[in-house]
């Protein structure tokens, strides 16, 4: 059911952030390029943080794998998750 995600993943953003920091720290770049890297890095860090701040765990249960003959056809259901429980 879940379609192949086209959005950027946290992992991808974080990897790019690490790359950017690495390049900037390595140096040897023209000043303008350095400034562009700095801005890119800060944007990436902010987006990572926003993703973390906004995240809410989602819990889903597959149907039909529980080995019991009475189970309905394969499907799924969302389980409500109360964060306060934790």
């Amino acid at each position, binding site marked *: 059911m879940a379609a192949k995600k086209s959005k950027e993943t946290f992992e991808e953003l974080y990897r790019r952030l690490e790359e950017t920091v690495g390049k900037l720290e390595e140096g040897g770049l023209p000043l303008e390029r350095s400034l562009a890297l700095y801005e890119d890095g800060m944007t990436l860090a902010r987006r990572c943080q926003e993703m973390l701040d906004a995240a809410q765990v989602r819990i889903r249960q597959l149907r039909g794998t529980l*080995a019991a003959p009475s189970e309905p056809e394969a499907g799924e259901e969302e389980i409500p998750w109360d964060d306060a429980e934790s």
Partner: protein
Amino acid sequence: MSMQVYSVSSITTYLRELLETDPHLADIWVSGEVSNLSRSTAGHFYFTLKDADSQIRCVFFRGATLQRDLPSLVESGAQVVAHGRVSLYEVRGDLQFYVDFVQPEGVGVLAMEFERLKVRLEQEGLFEPSRKRSLKPFPERIGVVSSPTGAVFHDICVILARRWPLAEIVLAPSAVQGMEAVRGIVAGIAALNDEPDMDVIIVARGGGSLEELWAFNEEAVARAIYASHAPIVSAVGHETDYSIADYVADVRAPTPSTAAELVAPDRYAVLGALNGHRASLSTAIRFRLDENVGCLRGAMGRMQHCAPPVDRERQKVDDALRVAGALVDAALGRNRDQVGGFLLQLRSLHPRATLARGYALVEREGSVVRSVRQVKTGDALDVRVSDGAFPARVEAKKSVSRRKSRPPQEMQPALFPSDKA
């Protein structure tokens, strides 16, 4: 009633096939005392297992197992439990027990099964450390195969909700003990592998007895774990419990809660790392800027050093200007003197100056008389001298030729005193 006569071969073959199609005899544990032990040059073991009343011939072919402690276990008089299958050796018509695994007497059957499967799967390469996959640092989809009702799944959710809420947790519910557990776990792993982008699958069960945990020691579960595309974290029982699943899994977690901590980072640690990256970015860019400012300063310094001697040139220009000024002044002064000279000259040319020297100006009817031809005898003239004028009259006129010498008295003697000489 029909009588049929069989050959010996057909009977022994029939018996062998009968024995080999019996499921109980194909996979059986037999306990007894080892006797009549012999070892062939090829490395196979032949012995008899016996108890108080009976005995059975046994053969253990080299290569039937990789069990390394076999020679020490199989010795005359030893009480052992052997695993294998029962069949007929047709050449001699002997019933034989084809042994593939031996354990000392006193070990529980489950423990023996465990050891046997472990050796077999290890031999097959299912535990190879080289094929263990590493877990993604920031998982987005975490599968869990476990009981939907137990505390295990709840605990995993609580920990993930706290540590890594970016993830989606997908539960493949399954019984985790009893008859249905093996089928459920295998189906759960398969179903989660059918889900797109599953980053990791936790196969979990809480603590229990060896019997209760047994499903995780079944070969089918081991093979399902081995076949999984997503890395598998096993978390079965307590820290001290080791299952076959643990050996096959990519990562073994000592407990289900630990599994939840292993599969995902702690978001606060990640936030800290993000701040660290920000600080690194700021430090690096400040360093670059300082470096550039430094370069700029250096360049300015060098430029000043290399600049042309402006002051000296300026002084030169000043000097030139001064010289030019002096020259202009001198030129002007000369001109002024010249003009003064001209003025004096001009003044000396004024008619009054001539009159003062004794010359007279003769006019006739307002015009200056320059020639005798301008007058005739009897004309009235005005004669101007330096201090006034008086009238005169022409009495006679005479041209003066420069060639002919004229008597001086015919001239105006007062005007040409020099001619008198």
